[in-house]
């Protein structure tokens, strides 16, 4: 078995953001770490927008980032500490917008280890040295300087190790041009044989330690170590010299301390009124802003409150600023924006607004100022960046009857939880919809002048007449435009002399103005026509092709005429390439199932250059489209697109000199004949293909996309641009006119959102009624009824609108739970019913099933636990609740008490399998209770977390001991365990692939496939004779061991795994969702030749496309166990980012042309969608 792993939706969650000027001194850029992806965004000041500049897959984990500016330099370098055991200096090339390694220095082993530095990074603000520290013991200091040619040079590392010391944070202190100093928060846990050390007593003292890098003596000394609050968690350097007071801000719970030499000031933070008095106020992230006369820090508490910390004449001042969602990292941009990277869920971009006021200011360490969170006053939200971060469950099914399945993902945490319904394709925003009198047979958008980008008219052709709409603030019908209104239009356009062209069945009209219309009548009926600014081609019924050109005087002149000898079905002229007089090619689709490319050169006009034969003989070309596409204006390539009447689109490269065709690729896009037309996406030509769905082909950020739109199927569509939408589309669907634009380019899925109340945990689909049952349960949180009480208290205090989504709810303390069961209608995106759990019960498991004796009813069984404590695991009671599902509503039938946590439920032929703690049990439904029927003899090691059934086999998984396979024997009513895994794995989810095989994901970011040995099958035929053998087991475990047939390190914690099929007639794939909000797929590869090709491609790419952070790709994918039988598609995709020369060399080594390699990469992707 071979699998091809591919990330479909990259991680949305953010780990850290950093502000810097990476490409030029004035640039405002943000480096965003998404764990194993690094992105650079640039702020466009005028448009208040962020543009993505660069995004790269790292094949390694970012652990820390900092910016570093060499003394006297005007650009920042990005320094990254990762799991590669190397420190990497990156620069952003302003021309190519790509990150390049400036320097890479190895200091230790790879992996996220406790004593290998990389977890913390701190730079000297003057750019002379850098400290990189591990969580324990090791710290290295590097001196950075420049050599003669002003390249960065790095010294050998200077050690500042201290054994048995845990480091909480480090920062570089602004010392001017004195020796650089670094401050560290440390705890020395002492030796285990010393009875007074912290590791023995548990009593410790946190220290603030200053390390000085003596540049003269070239060594590091531990200069001062002073005791500091044990709650301190962050260090913030304060600019010194002329920029500020210098020193360091030590962030403790409830308190901020400014320490500079011997001076120390401390101030409490303003506190939320509803916050429990015994709970510390923890600051989770900060950002700082420095301008000529302004120096301010913005701190965010873990609840989401922002505090402004500033130094004024009186000293330190802390003020409540605003409340947004809790962030993992925030950064202030020079031009007055705030980028907030959420811990969970969507991120946002804000603008600073508002005036200075004096409310909620805290200036000393004794009085506490209280505030109630208010709606945004100092910030204004500009846009949000969607993120699925923390997907807890994912299901794929077509519940909306759309023909293709939707992906249902539970995402987010607490008040920011949601159910996202994802559909493959680009999201569309509709600008206008208008009804039309009849069903049109064509639509054209007409530019005002040949050079303008804005459309002046929209022409809609009906049978027998043509409607002309003038584009302005509104669309209005006009009749004096000079266009012929009384016949249907075959083609329309704008010519280079700014005349409009309208081609009807029996005339060609060139319209200079409404009174000045030149009309020419052809010798026959015109069937097809096409034009660009200077060229026009028409066909007459019977297969006569006529070609016209605009002569220098601005007159349309016939140049050539040719008999095609058969009916022409479609025709298209490409637009004139930059700097050329004419387009050289005309594509003609003919009745004999061929498409011919004809030359338009003055010598040999309309001679055939090449022919494209169509793949299946019966199909005919419905439309053709010649487009120049490419990743940049410099490397454009002419493509011939052919839309066939069987729903295929062919895409072929045309040699721009000879007109020869090569590298044909095909894609099935829908069941209807395909109509193609030209559109604009980010200023370059792109394709709209209309079939049973509408597709758009475009290039974006170095990648080629061909994706469907999540919008109604169109009959006709074309590009449209007006003042309001520069790159929109206008189309007709049945009897409506629609103007729309694509929302987010590069997006794979578009989503609709159903907000949820608590953190969602599990989801099941009710198969017959087609709705979703969702379990929501949240630790450390008040249930709804108590929240409402708080809310009324709040409202009494202040009249501001309270938005729980943003401000969150107070923490309730350990062991307090809020939980509910929700039923959602996926079509209307609304909640049908909600069942609140009371008495501090929380729902842990869910299954939808039927029971023997009650076949007509559908039941939902929910396992609940009362007073559950997470660590150590304890509870006061546990129940199995049986609900009858009646019309989207849950009706509690009865509650059965069980003695341990029922974390896993699974229907089993009219009965119910339940994992109660260590026991696997079989229950039947009774009138008052669930009736225990059977229990397995050999208990599980700790806790059964999940059960799945295939035929008679039961696959049950222990929370820390991987999957076991069991068998129920009716005759003696016993459950026997006969196989298990050799590796103890902490599974987060698993799915059954076939009778013998399971695929699983674990909490250490792995994916793997296990298979039962063939001997099991034989044994199961006669259980009576093998049951003693099974019971005896082998080496204190099950008799058979599952073989490990595939393994892959995803690098992201997958919480769900499902076997599904995302496309019509495509193969079944495995789909997973991760805590970072990524969705990935594993596609089976069945052909041996294909496997070999990808193995070789991977092998070469490991050499040529070296990961940016210096992590060895093979080592990364083998993080816990060696990678086996899985091809890393994300690595294969890197081929397209290589330079042309490397692509060529690699393709020669592989023995396949670059185009062939691209084609194969595309093919695998096309199998998914």
């Amino acid at each position: 078995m071979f699998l091809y792993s591919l990330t479909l939706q990259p991680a949305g969650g953010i780990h850290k953001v950093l502000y810097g000027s990476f490409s030029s001194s004035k640039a405002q850029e943000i480096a965003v770490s998404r764990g194993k992806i690094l992105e650079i965004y640039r702020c466009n000041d005028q448009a208040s927008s962020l543009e993505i500049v660069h995004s790269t897959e790292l094949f390694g984990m970012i652990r820390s980032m900092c910016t570093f500016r060499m003394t006297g330099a005007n650009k920042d370098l990005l320094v990254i500490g990762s799991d590669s055991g190397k420190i990497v200096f990156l620069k952003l090339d302003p021309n190519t917008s790509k990150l390049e390694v400036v320097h890479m220095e190895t200091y230790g082993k790879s992996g996220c280890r406790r004593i290998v530095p990389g977890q913390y990074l701190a730079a000297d603000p003057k750019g002379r040295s850098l400290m990189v520290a591990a969580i324990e013991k090791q710290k290295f200091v590097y001196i950075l300087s420049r050599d003669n040619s002003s390249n960065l040079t790095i010294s050998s590392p200077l050690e500042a190790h201290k054994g048995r010391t845990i480091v909480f944070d480090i920062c570089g202190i602004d010392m001017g041009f004195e020796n650089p100093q670094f401050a560290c928060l440390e705890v020395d846990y002492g030796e285990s044989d010393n009875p007074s050390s912290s590791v023995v007593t548990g009593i410790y003292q946190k220290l603030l330690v200053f390390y000085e890098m003596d540049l003269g003596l070239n060594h590091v000394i531990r200069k001062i170590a002073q005791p500091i609050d044990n709650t301190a968690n962050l260090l913030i350097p304060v600019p010194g010299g002329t920029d500020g007071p210098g020193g360091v801000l030590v962030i403790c719970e409830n308190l901020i301390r400014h320490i500079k030499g011997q001076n120390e000031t401390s101030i409490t933070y303003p506190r939320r009124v509803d916050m429990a008095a015994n709970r510390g106020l923890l600051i989770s992230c900060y950002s700082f802003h420095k301008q000529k006369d302004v120096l301010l820090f913005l701190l965010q508490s873990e609840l989401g409150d922002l505090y402004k910390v500033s130094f004024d004449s009186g000293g330190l001042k802390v003020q409540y600023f605003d409340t947004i969602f809790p962030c993992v990292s925030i950064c202030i941009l020079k031009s007055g924006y705030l980028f907030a990277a959420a811990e969970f869920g969507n991120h946002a971009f804000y603008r600073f607004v508002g005036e200075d006021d004096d409310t909620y200011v805290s200036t000393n360490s004794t009085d506490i100022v209280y505030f109630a969170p208010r709606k945004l006053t100092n910030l204004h939200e500009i846009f949000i960046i969607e993120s699925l971060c923390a997907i807890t469950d994912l299901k794929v099914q077509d519940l909306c009857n759309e023909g293709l399945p939707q992906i249902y993902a539970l995402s987010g945490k607490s008040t920011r939880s949601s159910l996202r319904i994802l559909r493959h394709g680009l999201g569309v925003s509709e600008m206008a919809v208008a009804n039309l009198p009849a069903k049109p047979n064509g639509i054209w958008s007409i530019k005002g002048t040949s050079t303008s980008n804005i459309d002046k008219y929209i022409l809609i052709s009906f049978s027998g007449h043509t409607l002309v709409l003038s584009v302005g603030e509104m669309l209005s019908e006009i009749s004096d435009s000079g266009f012929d209104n009384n016949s249907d239009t075959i083609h329309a356009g704008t010519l280079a002399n700014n005349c409009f062209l309208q081609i009807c069945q029996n005339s060609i009209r060139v319209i200079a103005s409404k009174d000045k219309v030149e009309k020419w009548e052809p010798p026959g009926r015109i069937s097809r026509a096409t034009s660009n600014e200077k060229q026009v081609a028409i066909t007459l019924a019977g297969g006569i092709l006529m070609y016209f050109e605009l002569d220098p005087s601005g007159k349309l002149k016939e140049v050539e005429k040719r008999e095609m000898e058969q009916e022409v079905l479609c025709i298209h002229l490409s637009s004139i390439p930059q700097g050329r007089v004419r387009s050289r090619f005309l594509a003609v689709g003919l009745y004999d199932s061929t498409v011919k490319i004809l030359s338009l050169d003055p010598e040999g006009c309309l001679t055939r250059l090449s022919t494209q034969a169509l793949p299946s003989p019966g199909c005919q070309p419905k439309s053709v489209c010649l487009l120049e596409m490419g990743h940049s204006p410099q490397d454009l390539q002419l493509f011939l697109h052919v839309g066939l009447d069987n729903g295929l689109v062919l895409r072929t490269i045309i040699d721009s000199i000879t007109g020869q065709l090569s590298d044909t690729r095909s894609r099935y896009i829908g069941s209807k004949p395909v109509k193609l037309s030209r559109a604009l996406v980010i200023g370059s030509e792109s394709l709209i293909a209309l079939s049973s769905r509408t597709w758009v082909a475009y290039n974006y950020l170095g990648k080629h996309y061909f994706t469907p739109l999540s919008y109604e199927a169109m009959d006709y569509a074309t590009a449209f641009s007006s003042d309001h939408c520069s790159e929109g589309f206008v189309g007709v669907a049945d009897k409506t006119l629609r103007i729309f634009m694509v929302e987010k380019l590069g997006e794979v899925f578009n989503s609709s959102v159903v907000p949820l109340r608590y953190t969602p945990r599990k989801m099941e689909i009710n198969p017959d009624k087609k709705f979703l049952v969702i379990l929501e349960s949240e630790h450390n949180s008040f249930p709804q009824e108590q929240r409402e009480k708080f809310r009324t208290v709040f409202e009494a205090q202040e009249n501001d609108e309270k938005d729980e989504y943003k401000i969150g709810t107070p923490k309730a303390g350990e062991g307090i739970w809020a939980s509910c069961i929700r039923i959602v209608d996926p079509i209307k995106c609304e909640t049908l019913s909600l069942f609140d759990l009371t008495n501090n019960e929380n729902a842990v498991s869910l299954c939808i099933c039927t029971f023997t004796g009650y076949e007509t009813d559908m039941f939902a069984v929910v396992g609940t636990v009362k007073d559950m404590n997470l660590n150590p695991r304890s509870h006061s009671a546990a129940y199995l609740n049986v609900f009858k599902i009646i019309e989207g509503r849950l009706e509690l039938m009865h509650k059965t008490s069980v003695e341990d946590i029922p974390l896993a439920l699974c229907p089993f032929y009219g009965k119910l399998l339940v994992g109660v703690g260590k026991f696997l049990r079989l229950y039947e439904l009774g009138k008052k209770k669930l009736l225990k029927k059977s229990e397995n003899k050999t208990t599980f090691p700790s806790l059964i977390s999940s059960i799945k059934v295939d035929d008679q086999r039961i696959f049950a998984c222990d929370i820390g001991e991987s999957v076991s396979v069991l068998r129920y024997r009716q005759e003696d009513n016993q459950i026997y365990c006969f196989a298990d895994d050799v590796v103890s794995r902490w599974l987060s989810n698993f799915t059954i692939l076939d009778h013998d095989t399971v695929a699983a994901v674990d909490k250490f970011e792995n994916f793997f496939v296990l298979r039962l040995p063939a001997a099991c099958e034989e044994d199961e035929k006669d259980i009576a004779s093998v049951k003693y053998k099974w019971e005896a087991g082998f080496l204190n475990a099950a008799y058979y061991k599952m073989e490990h047939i595939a393994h892959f390190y995803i690098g992201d914690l997958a919480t769900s795994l499902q076997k599904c099929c995302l496309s019509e007639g495509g193969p079944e794939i495995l789909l997973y969702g991760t805590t970072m909000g990524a969705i990935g797929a594993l596609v089976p590869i069945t052909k041996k030749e294909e496997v070999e090709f990808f193995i070789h491609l991977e092998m070469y790419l490991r050499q040529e496309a070296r990961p940016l952070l210096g992590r060895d790709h093979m080592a990364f994918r083998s993080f816990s166990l060696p990678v086996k039988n899985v091809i890393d598609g994300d690595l294969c995709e890197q081929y397209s980012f290589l330079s042309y020369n490397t692509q060529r060399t690699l393709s020669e080594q592989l023995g396949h042309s670059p185009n062939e390699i691209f084609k194969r990469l595309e093919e695998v992707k096309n199998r998914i969608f």
Partner: protein
Amino acid sequence: MSDRWNAQAQLEHLQQKYVGAGNADTSKWEWGCSIKRDSYASHIGHHPRLLFMSLVENESIARTKLQFLTKMIQPCGPPDNN
């Protein structure tokens, strides 16, 4: 004799260099402390896992991280008396 002494010195050097490397006298508690510290360090280094933990406990990521760091000081409670 010198060989044995040399081996001993090498072992000590290894234990000095690699924190957590045990010897014949390492107690279960010490070994446990070492394992737990390694695990916490790994959880902190892998952001996706940290997200998972903080999601389950409904705490902020910063607090989860701080808790893990603090637990590294005394990960297994006080040692047994014997």
